[in-house]
Each structure stands twice: as structure tokens, then as C-alpha cells.
């Protein structure tokens, strides 16, 4: 969120707004405004854009006004995100607004700097209507960015001459900080010139590469692919790849591609998948128990399709893990449709057949398994 990004900016010596305070109640917002003793901004802290348009960012002259605006903003729904906290910070007097970002670019397999003289608006929109205004510069990670190149980029982006020097210094710090933090995105929208002539980041959007958190445990909350669902957050803690979806057929499999394909066949069989869950390699009793209880804790799930293609993961191990998981979970109303193939699949199927568990239905292929699971979900509904 913005306040975390700005805190990181301050650590990296990137000029930004004076430090504000987080408020989760109207009283806290009022107190913060009173302690600053100057006009403040009250800003919704949510993991989505378009806050201004949604009424989530307000200028307040005094503590009373801060209390009133915080009351409006707390609990507001912004693109499906409920505002639970606001940032109260001393307001800056703005003269002009620009746009600046550094991101990792998949196509060039390097970094990209985007600069634009229009700020405070959606950059995608500017890019659609006036693409010539948006300067996109490829940066070779083995070369990096120096001050001269930064000045050149910002000059080409038509930033005013009296701003370019300060903005270029900020850009170099932004780039260095982006690399140092293992970020995939550092966005400043808007970058502003204040009425007293300073160039600062008025807003921040930071996304950290989740694979690099071993180097930055303190930045975990700003990692990309943020879990905005409580089940997703729980899965993350357990090291499972889980994405919540809207349907009623739970899906569990090994390997991201195979699970995505499983969602596809469930959909093609006329059903709606409830989730994506990749158990990864090796599916022992503990992992199967965690995975199954996660999928089943979604109350909308009416049947579960378990699709395992053994490579390194062995079919017999999965079958035993599944039976142990069912033992741990006790009676469940949902049926589990199981498709096993690959390494030791015959042994695995035999274990399941011998166990003759009332909750388990086996399937020969993933398409047949999907049809069965979708049928069971419909019957249960």
C-alpha cells in the first residue's frame, strides 16, 4: 500500500511527502490531523488504483474535517476492496504533476522506465489517447542508469527545464532503489513539483518480487501477487499455490500448468472451478491434509477434482496421503473425484480401490474426472 511504499522510499532516500500516520478509526484520524497542526490529506489505503475517483482521497483543512472525511472513507468499497485504514499526512501544495515508474519488462528481459509529463491520471489512458507523450526507455540491467541518461529521458518526456535536474536525481534513486529492493514495480503517480519548488513522490506503488523475499523479509507485505483473500493468505503461509475463484468445483493437482488445464476441462464440462491449487512436487499425507482442508474450507465447494500426474510425485504416495488426509478430516459431505496417472499410478489406484472409501470416486482420464466432478457438484446443489 501507499504508506508502506513511501516508508520504503524514505529508507532509500527518495524524496516523498512528510511522514503521515495510519488511522483505522475516525478518532485516530482526527488526532493525527490535530498533531500535525496543518491541513492534511486523508487517503484510503487499499491495494487498487482509482482511489481518487472513488472518493478515497480528500484534502482537509482541520481535524474536524479530517474526522468527517475519514468517516466517509473508512468502510468505502473501492473496486471490491473495503477500506480498513487511511493515511493521514500533511498536505503538500502542488504546482504540477507528472508520471514516473521503473518496472521489470518481460519482453526485453530487462527493465523499463516510463516517464510522462501528465501525472495523477491513469497512465494506460494517456498511452491510449496520446502515446507520443509517454516515453518508454529500455534499461539493460548490466548497464544500469546514470544521471545523464535520466536527464535525457525526462527531457524527452517534456518535463520543464527547471524540474529536470531534481527529477533526474530522484529517478536515479528510484532506479537504484528498485534494483536494491528486488522490485518488479516502483511507480510514482504523481511525481509533483510543489509550490515551493521541490520535486517529490506524492504517491507510491511498490511491488516486490516474491521470489526475492529471502533477501528482504521485511518487505513481505509488499510482495506481488498479493493475497487479498484470507484463504489465499493461509495457503501462502503453508507454501501452497492457491487462487480463489467463483465456482463450486474444488480443484487440486500437481504442477501449475496441469492445474490450469484442469480448470479448463472443468469449465468445458459445464462447471465452474472454485479455486486453483497446486500442491507442487511430492504430495504426502501432511500436504494432502493441508490442501484438502484448504479447498474444503470454502463453503461453496460441492465436489473436488484431484488431478495428479506422477513424475517425481508417486501415485501410491498420493493415494496414501489422500486416505490419511480423509482420516484427519473426518466425515466430509463432498465427494472427491481422483484421477491418477504417471509414476506408480497403478499402485495408487489399487490402494484407493482396496480402501473403498465412501468419499472417493476414481476417474480414468482428466476429462472423465471433470465430467464426474461437475455432475456431482450439480447434484449436491
Amino acid at each position, binding site marked *: 500500500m501507499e504508506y508502506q511504499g513511501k516508508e520504503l522510499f524514505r529508507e532509500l532516500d527518495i524524496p516523498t511527502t512528510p511522514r503521515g500516520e495510519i488511522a483505522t478509526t475516525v478518532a485516530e484520524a482526527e488526532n493525527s490531523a490535530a498533531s500535525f497542526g496543518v491541513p492534511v490529506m486523508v487517503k484510503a489505503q487499499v491495494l487498487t488504483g482509482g482511489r481518487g475517483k472513488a472518493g478515497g482521497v480528500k484534502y482537509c483543512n482541520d481535524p474536524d474535517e479530517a474526522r468527517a472525511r475519514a468517516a466517509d472513507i473508512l468502510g468505502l468499497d473501492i473496486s471490491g476492496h473495503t477500506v480498513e485504514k487511511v493515511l493521514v499526512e500533511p498536505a503538500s501544495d502542488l504546482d504540477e504533476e507528472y508520471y514516473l515508474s521503473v518496472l521489470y519488462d518481460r519482453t526485453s528481459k530487462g527493465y523499463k522506465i516510463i516517464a510522462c509529463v501528465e501525472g495523477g491520471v491513469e497512465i494506460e489512458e494517456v498511452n491510449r489517447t496520446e502515446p507520443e507523450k509517454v516515453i518508454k526507455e529500455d534499461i539493460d*540491467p548490466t548497464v544500469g542508469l546514470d544521471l545523464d541518461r535520466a536527464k535525457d529521458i525526462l527531457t524527452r518526456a517534456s518535463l520543464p527545464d527547471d524540474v529536470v535536474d531534481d527529477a533526474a536525481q530522484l529517478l536515479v534513486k528510484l532506479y537504484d532503489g528498485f534494483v536494491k529492493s528486488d522490485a518488479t514495480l516502483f511507480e510514482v503517480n504523481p511525481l509533483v513539483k510543489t509550490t515551493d519548488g521541490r520535486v517529490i513522490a506524492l504517491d507510491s506503488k511498490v511491488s516486490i518480487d516474491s521470489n526475492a523475499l529471502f533477501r528482504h523479509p521485511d518487505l513481505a507485505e509488499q510482495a506481488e501477487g498479493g493475497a487479498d483473500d484470507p484463504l489465499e493468505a493461509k495457503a501462502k503461509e503453508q507454501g501452497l499455490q492457491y487462487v480463489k475463484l467463483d465456482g463450486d468445483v474444488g480443484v487440486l493437482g500437481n504442477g*501449475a*500448468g*496441469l492445474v490450469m488445464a484442469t480448470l479448463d476441462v472443468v469449465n468445458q464440462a459445464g462447471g465452474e472451478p472454485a479455486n486453483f491449487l497446486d500442491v507442487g512436487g511430492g504430495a504426502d499425507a501432511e500436504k494432502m491434509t493441508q490442501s484438502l482442508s484448504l479447498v474444503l474450507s470454502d463453503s461453496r465447494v460441492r465436489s473436488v477434482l484431484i488431478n495428479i500426474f506422477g513424475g517425481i510425485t508417486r501415485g501410491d504416495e498420493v493415494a496414501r496421503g489422500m486416505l490419511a488426509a480423509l482420516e484427519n478430516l473426518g466425515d466430509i459431505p463432498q465427494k472427491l473425484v481422483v484421477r491418477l496417472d504417471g509414476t506408480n499410478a497403478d499402485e495408487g489406484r489399487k490402494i484407493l480401490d482396496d480402501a473403498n472409501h465412501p468419499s472417493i470416486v476414481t476417474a480414468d482420464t482428466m476429462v472423465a474426472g471433470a465430467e464426474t466432478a461437475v455432475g456431482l457438484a450439480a447434484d449436491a446443489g
Partner: protein
Amino acid sequence: MSILIDENTRVLVQGIGNQGTFHAKRNLDYGTQIIAGVHPKRGGETWAELDRPIYASAIEAVEHEDVNASMILVPAPFAKDAILEAHEAGIELIVCLTEGIPVHDMAQVYNILYPRGDDGVASKKGRPVLIGPNCPGLISPGTSNVGFIPESSTRPGSVGLVSRSGTLTYQLMHELNEAGVGISTCVGIGGDPIIGSDFMDVIPRFAEDPETEAIVFVGEIGGTEEQRVGRWIHENIPDTPVAAYVAGFTAPPGKQMGHAGAIVKEGGDGGETAADKKEALTDLGIAVGMNPSETAQMMIERLR
């Protein structure tokens, strides 16, 4: 025949912990020439499970052994240095199986392996081939297996298979195998946003391989490489039977579906969804199945 690996591939293994040893042993038992292992603290010892020497670094290994490929299974924090070490040792084929490497590390690795020309575009001519990371490796059935791919679900044949996903690769191989269709080489290129070799680095090799008569490729949501290789196929090998599958028709935008690279960017330039990719490939005359089984069936029909 095959591409990238065959009976003459001589493999060094960087990362000989439990996992590395387990898979190297499997590969050796399959007939792959596994020559030696690398471990920074065990140089001079014998790798008992495989009865092979251990060297302290890839550079030291190539001073004593004739190797032309390296398989890397070191933990993610050390993968960047391992790949660069293999490169410094002059190894031509580097297969990195490691999952979870930071994107900045791979951005460095990629741009060091493939320096940009004056036009800013990286060139791979005369440079080493990097497969992966975050991939299952590759197999040329009957001669060589470097990585995780289960050899039991395939046989030698004439279909070249390339995929971003490990288990989906196995699924496709299995379905083709059930119909008696074998594989020349199967390459798992990996699911990360930065991978050493993409479809465009593999499929032209299949086109040049006299034994590969047909190609199956398996993509997924995210990026637009599938379209790029689709155009190449359309322009260069229009008569070769090609079938494809793109995983993730039901994936919501903005959500990472397991693989770090499998995400449809919100507000991006488009073309990153499975439906976009299927449409683009279909327009280029490439058969795209709605699921792995349908794609396998399409290929089997074409070969009949």
C-alpha cells in the same frame, strides 16, 4: 534423432544434494552420460551414489573432464552464480531446473549470457543455450534424459514437444504414447517470466532436425511468445503438422496461477489470455485444442 541432447551429451551436475543426486542417478540409469558433480565444499571427494568425481566448481570440472552440458539443481539463492559459473566454464548447454529464482537475478544472467547489440536487441548466435530455470529439463527418448521428466511415459519417435509446464508435458507425452506416438525430443522451457530459451529458440531447431516431423507446443497465459512463434511457424514451416494447447482459459486477470510467469496483466497490451492466444494461433493455421487431450488427439489424427 533429436535436438539439444543425444547420446553424445556429457553432463556435469551442479547441485548434488538429495534431489540432485536422486535425479542424476535416474538420468544415469536411463543411459545419460553423467560425468561428474560440483559441490563447493566436497571437491576431490567421490560422488558415491553415482561413482563419479566431485569438483569444487564447474571451472575446475572442465579442466579435468570433457563435458558439454550442465544440469543445475542448486537452491534458488545460489542459482545465478551457478549459471554464470557454467557459462564461464564454457559449457554450451546449461539446464537450470531450480525454481524460485529472483527475477533480478535472472535479468542479470540473461543479459550477461546474451548481451544486447547496438540496436538494444539480445543476440543468441554463438552463445550458450540456457534451458529454464523452473523447468523439468529435457529428454531425447532412447538416448538421454537431463532433468525430471519421467521416461516411462514416452518412447522414441518423430514428434518434437516443447512446453512451459512440467506436468502438462508429461500429460501430453502420455497421451501421445498411449496412441503409440513417440517423441524426438521433449523440452520443458519453464514457467518463469525470464527463461533462457523460449518457443522461438526451440521450435526452429525442431524444424531443422531431420527426424522431427511434427511439433506440439504447450503454452499458458501471460506474455505473447506463443503468437511470435505462431507467426514463425506460419511463415517458415507451413506444411509441418503442428498442434498447440494454451493452459488457462479460465484464469482470471491479475492473478498469478502458480507459475511466476503465468499471469494476465491487467491493463496490459492484450494478447496474454488463453483465448487471445488460441484465436491468434488459429488464424495462423495452427490447430489449438481446448485441453491437453484434444491437442494430443489433433496431433494423432494429423499423423494418421
